[in-house]
Protein backbone atom coordinates (compact mmCIF):
# COMPACT_ATOMS: atom_id res chain seq x y z
CA UNK A 1 0.00 0.00 0.00
CA UNK A 2 1.44 3.33 -1.03
CA UNK A 3 1.03 6.15 1.46
CA UNK A 4 -1.62 8.55 0.13
CA UNK A 5 0.15 11.32 2.04
CA UNK A 6 2.55 11.42 -0.93
CA UNK A 7 -0.18 12.98 -3.07
CA UNK A 8 0.99 16.55 -3.58
CA UNK A 9 4.67 15.71 -3.06
CA UNK A 10 6.78 18.05 -5.21
CA UNK A 11 10.36 17.31 -6.24
CA UNK A 12 13.14 19.85 -5.83
CA UNK A 13 13.64 21.31 -9.33
CA UNK A 14 16.85 20.53 -11.19
CA UNK A 15 18.22 22.34 -14.21
CA UNK A 16 19.68 20.22 -16.98
CA UNK A 17 21.38 21.17 -20.22
CA UNK A 18 20.28 19.55 -23.48
CA UNK A 19 23.53 18.03 -24.74
CA UNK A 20 23.99 17.21 -28.44
CA UNK A 21 25.30 13.70 -27.73
CA UNK A 22 22.22 12.83 -25.68
CA UNK A 23 19.85 13.96 -28.44
CA UNK A 24 21.83 12.00 -31.02
CA UNK A 25 21.76 8.85 -28.84
CA UNK A 26 18.00 9.28 -28.40
CA UNK A 27 17.61 9.52 -32.20
CA UNK A 28 19.70 6.38 -32.72
CA UNK A 29 17.62 4.52 -30.15
CA UNK A 30 14.26 5.52 -31.64
CA UNK A 31 15.02 5.06 -35.35
CA UNK A 32 14.99 8.80 -35.99
CA UNK A 33 16.84 9.57 -39.24
CA UNK A 34 16.03 13.26 -39.77
CA UNK A 35 19.39 15.09 -39.54
CA UNK A 36 17.78 18.30 -38.24
CA UNK A 37 18.15 16.88 -34.72
CA UNK A 38 21.98 16.67 -34.89
CA UNK A 39 23.16 18.67 -37.95
CA UNK A 40 22.98 22.44 -37.36
CA UNK A 41 23.09 23.27 -41.07
CA UNK A 42 20.16 20.93 -41.74
CA UNK A 43 18.30 22.45 -38.78
CA UNK A 44 18.77 26.02 -40.07
CA UNK A 45 17.81 25.01 -43.60
CA UNK A 46 14.54 23.67 -42.15
CA UNK A 47 13.90 26.99 -40.36
CA UNK A 48 15.05 26.09 -36.83
CA UNK A 49 17.39 28.45 -34.91
CA UNK A 50 19.39 25.40 -33.73
CA UNK A 51 18.89 21.63 -33.65
CA UNK A 52 15.41 20.94 -32.24
CA UNK A 53 14.81 18.06 -29.80
CA UNK A 54 12.74 14.98 -30.69
CA UNK A 55 9.10 15.14 -29.54
CA UNK A 56 9.32 12.85 -26.51
CA UNK A 57 12.97 13.59 -25.63
CA UNK A 58 12.00 15.54 -22.47
CA UNK A 59 10.99 12.24 -20.88
CA UNK A 60 14.61 11.04 -21.15
CA UNK A 61 15.87 14.25 -19.57
CA UNK A 62 13.21 13.85 -16.87
CA UNK A 63 14.67 10.47 -15.90
CA UNK A 64 17.89 12.29 -14.98
CA UNK A 65 15.86 14.57 -12.71
CA UNK A 66 13.80 11.87 -11.05
CA UNK A 67 12.66 8.82 -13.02
CA UNK A 68 9.93 6.32 -12.22
CA UNK A 69 12.34 3.98 -10.39
CA UNK A 70 13.60 6.76 -8.09
CA UNK A 71 10.08 8.04 -7.56
CA UNK A 72 8.80 4.59 -6.60
CA UNK A 73 11.77 4.10 -4.28
CA UNK A 74 10.72 7.33 -2.58
CA UNK A 75 7.28 5.74 -2.09
CA UNK A 76 8.73 2.51 -0.80
CA UNK A 77 7.36 0.62 -3.81
CA UNK A 78 9.56 -1.74 -5.86
CA UNK A 79 9.97 -1.00 -9.57
CA UNK A 80 9.54 -4.71 -10.39
CA UNK A 81 6.26 -5.28 -12.19
CA UNK A 82 5.40 -1.61 -12.55
CA UNK A 83 3.91 -0.72 -15.93
CA UNK A 84 3.53 2.56 -17.75
CA UNK A 85 -0.22 2.95 -18.21
CA UNK A 86 -0.40 6.36 -19.85
CA UNK A 87 1.57 9.40 -20.89
CA UNK A 88 0.68 12.80 -22.25
CA UNK A 89 2.59 15.91 -23.25
CA UNK A 90 1.64 19.51 -24.00
CA UNK A 91 4.32 21.45 -25.88
CA UNK A 92 4.23 25.21 -25.29
CA UNK A 93 7.50 26.54 -26.75
CA UNK A 94 10.33 25.08 -28.85
CA UNK A 95 13.45 23.60 -27.25
CA UNK A 96 16.85 23.23 -28.87
CA UNK A 97 20.19 21.57 -28.25
CA UNK A 98 22.18 23.79 -25.88
CA UNK A 99 19.09 25.06 -24.00
CA UNK A 100 18.74 24.42 -20.29
CA UNK A 101 15.52 22.99 -18.86
CA UNK A 102 14.30 23.19 -15.28
CA UNK A 103 12.30 20.09 -14.37
CA UNK A 104 9.94 19.69 -11.44
CA UNK A 105 7.56 16.76 -10.76
CA UNK A 106 4.49 16.50 -8.57
CA UNK A 107 2.55 13.44 -7.43
CA UNK A 108 -0.93 14.36 -8.65
CA UNK A 109 -2.88 11.30 -7.53
CA UNK A 110 -2.66 7.77 -6.13
CA UNK A 111 -5.70 5.49 -6.36
CA UNK A 112 -6.67 1.82 -6.41
CA UNK A 113 -8.78 -0.20 -8.84
CA UNK A 114 -10.05 -3.78 -8.71
CA UNK A 115 -10.17 -3.86 -4.90
CA UNK A 116 -6.56 -2.86 -4.57
CA UNK A 117 -5.17 -5.34 -7.11
CA UNK A 118 -3.99 -2.33 -9.11
CA UNK A 119 -2.61 0.93 -7.73
CA UNK A 120 -2.28 3.88 -10.09
CA UNK A 121 0.25 6.66 -9.49
CA UNK A 122 -0.17 9.86 -11.50
CA UNK A 123 2.77 12.26 -11.77
CA UNK A 124 2.72 15.69 -13.43
CA UNK A 125 5.88 17.35 -14.70
CA UNK A 126 6.63 20.98 -15.52
CA UNK A 127 9.48 21.89 -17.84
CA UNK A 128 10.71 25.49 -17.92
CA UNK A 129 13.47 27.18 -19.86
CA UNK A 130 14.50 30.53 -18.45
CA UNK A 131 11.27 32.34 -17.55
CA UNK A 132 9.20 30.35 -20.02
CA UNK A 133 7.08 27.24 -19.50
CA UNK A 134 8.10 25.01 -22.44
CA UNK A 135 6.07 21.86 -21.78
CA UNK A 136 4.03 19.87 -19.29
CA UNK A 137 3.49 16.15 -19.06
CA UNK A 138 1.46 13.60 -17.11
CA UNK A 139 2.60 10.03 -16.47
CA UNK A 140 0.35 7.29 -15.11
CA UNK A 141 2.01 4.19 -13.68
CA UNK A 142 0.25 1.03 -12.54
CA UNK A 143 1.53 -1.23 -9.76
CA UNK A 144 0.14 -4.75 -9.74
CA UNK A 145 -0.22 -6.35 -6.32
CA UNK A 146 -0.03 -9.92 -7.69
CA UNK A 147 3.49 -9.13 -8.92
CA UNK A 148 4.54 -7.19 -5.84
CA UNK A 149 2.52 -8.47 -2.88
CA UNK A 150 2.08 -5.77 -0.26
Amino acid at each position, binding site marked *: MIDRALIGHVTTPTTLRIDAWRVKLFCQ*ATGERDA*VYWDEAAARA*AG*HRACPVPTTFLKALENEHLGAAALLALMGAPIRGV*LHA*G*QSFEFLAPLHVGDTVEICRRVADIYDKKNGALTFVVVDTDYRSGERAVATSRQTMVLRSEVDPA
Partner: protein
Amino acid sequence: MSSDKFPPRLALDWGPVSAVDLALFAAASGDHNPLHLDAEVARDAGFDRPIVHGMLTMACTARAFTAALGAGSVRSLEARFVGVAKLGDTIRVEATLEAVEADLARYSIAARAADGRDLVTGSARVGASPLR
Protein backbone atom coordinates in the same frame (compact mmCIF):
# COMPACT_ATOMS: atom_id res chain seq x y z
CA MET B 1 -11.76 14.13 -43.19
CA SER B 2 -9.56 15.92 -45.74
CA SER B 3 -7.27 18.93 -45.66
CA ASP B 4 -4.70 20.42 -48.01
CA LYS B 5 -2.14 20.74 -45.18
CA PHE B 6 -2.67 17.52 -43.25
CA PRO B 7 -2.61 13.95 -44.64
CA PRO B 8 -5.79 11.97 -43.85
CA ARG B 9 -3.75 9.01 -42.62
CA LEU B 10 -0.20 8.58 -41.34
CA ALA B 11 1.52 5.26 -40.72
CA LEU B 12 4.87 4.06 -39.48
CA ASP B 13 6.25 0.54 -39.00
CA TRP B 14 9.09 -0.20 -36.64
CA GLY B 15 10.75 -3.47 -35.78
CA PRO B 16 11.06 -6.28 -35.16
CA VAL B 17 12.25 -4.82 -31.84
CA SER B 18 15.56 -6.48 -30.88
CA ALA B 19 17.31 -6.87 -27.52
CA VAL B 20 19.85 -4.32 -28.77
CA ASP B 21 17.05 -1.83 -29.49
CA LEU B 22 15.78 -2.20 -25.91
CA ALA B 23 19.28 -1.86 -24.40
CA LEU B 24 19.99 1.20 -26.54
CA PHE B 25 16.69 2.81 -25.52
CA ALA B 26 17.37 2.02 -21.85
CA ALA B 27 20.66 3.93 -22.15
CA ALA B 28 19.19 6.78 -24.20
CA SER B 29 16.13 7.24 -21.98
CA GLY B 30 17.59 6.43 -18.55
CA ASP B 31 14.81 3.85 -18.00
CA HIS B 32 16.78 0.82 -16.78
CA ASN B 33 13.82 -1.22 -15.51
CA PRO B 34 14.98 -4.87 -15.97
CA LEU B 35 11.48 -5.78 -17.22
CA HIS B 36 12.74 -4.46 -20.59
CA LEU B 37 16.13 -6.17 -20.52
CA ASP B 38 16.04 -9.40 -18.54
CA ALA B 39 13.94 -12.38 -19.69
CA GLU B 40 13.83 -13.87 -16.20
CA VAL B 41 12.55 -10.67 -14.59
CA ALA B 42 9.95 -10.40 -17.36
CA ARG B 43 8.80 -14.01 -16.73
CA ASP B 44 8.50 -13.36 -12.98
CA ALA B 45 6.28 -10.39 -13.81
CA GLY B 46 4.04 -12.58 -16.01
CA PHE B 47 5.44 -11.86 -19.49
CA ASP B 48 6.86 -14.53 -21.79
CA ARG B 49 9.40 -12.04 -23.20
CA PRO B 50 10.95 -8.71 -22.11
CA ILE B 51 8.55 -5.87 -22.82
CA VAL B 52 9.17 -2.80 -24.96
CA HIS B 53 9.43 0.54 -23.12
CA GLY B 54 6.12 2.38 -23.51
CA MET B 55 8.16 5.48 -24.22
CA LEU B 56 9.89 3.73 -27.14
CA THR B 57 6.50 2.97 -28.70
CA MET B 58 5.48 6.59 -27.98
CA ALA B 59 8.67 7.92 -29.62
CA CYS B 60 7.73 5.94 -32.76
CA THR B 61 4.21 7.34 -32.53
CA ALA B 62 5.62 10.88 -32.46
CA ARG B 63 7.86 10.02 -35.42
CA ALA B 64 4.80 9.15 -37.52
CA PHE B 65 3.85 12.85 -37.25
CA THR B 66 7.29 14.49 -37.53
CA ALA B 67 8.24 12.33 -40.53
CA ALA B 68 5.29 13.85 -42.41
CA LEU B 69 5.06 17.36 -40.88
CA GLY B 70 8.58 18.05 -39.60
CA ALA B 71 10.38 18.45 -36.28
CA GLY B 72 8.45 20.58 -33.80
CA SER B 73 5.08 19.94 -35.44
CA VAL B 74 3.54 18.11 -32.45
CA ARG B 75 1.68 20.41 -30.01
CA SER B 76 0.27 17.70 -27.76
CA LEU B 77 0.48 13.93 -27.63
CA GLU B 78 -1.45 11.54 -25.46
CA ALA B 79 -1.01 7.76 -25.22
CA ARG B 80 -2.77 5.05 -23.24
CA PHE B 81 -0.69 1.88 -23.16
CA VAL B 82 -3.58 -0.56 -23.53
CA GLY B 83 -1.33 -3.52 -24.34
CA VAL B 84 2.26 -4.54 -23.97
CA ALA B 85 4.68 -4.69 -26.91
CA LYS B 86 7.30 -7.38 -26.47
CA LEU B 87 10.77 -8.22 -27.70
CA GLY B 88 10.47 -9.38 -31.34
CA ASP B 89 7.26 -7.48 -32.08
CA THR B 90 6.93 -5.21 -35.09
CA ILE B 91 4.99 -2.09 -34.13
CA ARG B 92 2.61 -0.40 -36.56
CA VAL B 93 1.49 3.12 -35.71
CA GLU B 94 -1.53 4.56 -37.52
CA ALA B 95 -2.92 8.07 -37.13
CA THR B 96 -6.23 9.24 -38.58
CA LEU B 97 -7.11 12.88 -39.17
CA GLU B 98 -10.19 13.71 -37.09
CA ALA B 99 -10.52 17.50 -37.32
CA VAL B 100 -8.78 20.68 -38.42
CA GLU B 101 -9.25 23.75 -36.22
CA ALA B 102 -7.47 26.95 -37.28
CA ASP B 103 -3.87 25.90 -38.03
CA LEU B 104 -3.93 22.73 -35.98
CA ALA B 105 -5.08 19.23 -36.79
CA ARG B 106 -6.32 16.61 -34.37
CA TYR B 107 -5.49 12.97 -35.04
CA SER B 108 -6.54 9.76 -33.32
CA ILE B 109 -3.76 7.22 -32.84
CA ALA B 110 -3.70 3.42 -32.75
CA ALA B 111 -0.54 1.35 -32.44
CA ARG B 112 -0.72 -2.42 -32.85
CA ALA B 113 1.68 -5.33 -32.95
CA ALA B 114 1.94 -7.14 -36.30
CA ASP B 115 -0.27 -9.95 -34.92
CA GLY B 116 -3.05 -7.43 -34.25
CA ARG B 117 -2.65 -6.90 -30.47
CA ASP B 118 -3.60 -3.35 -29.46
CA LEU B 119 -0.66 -1.50 -27.90
CA VAL B 120 -1.54 2.20 -27.80
CA THR B 121 -4.62 4.31 -28.31
CA GLY B 122 -4.32 8.05 -28.12
CA SER B 123 -4.51 11.38 -29.82
CA ALA B 124 -2.34 14.24 -31.02
CA ARG B 125 -2.65 17.89 -31.99
CA VAL B 126 -0.19 18.92 -34.68
CA GLY B 127 0.67 21.98 -36.73
CA ALA B 128 1.87 22.13 -40.32
CA SER B 129 4.83 24.25 -39.17
CA PRO B 130 7.05 24.05 -36.07
CA LEU B 131 6.02 25.49 -32.71
CA ARG B 132 7.45 29.02 -32.30
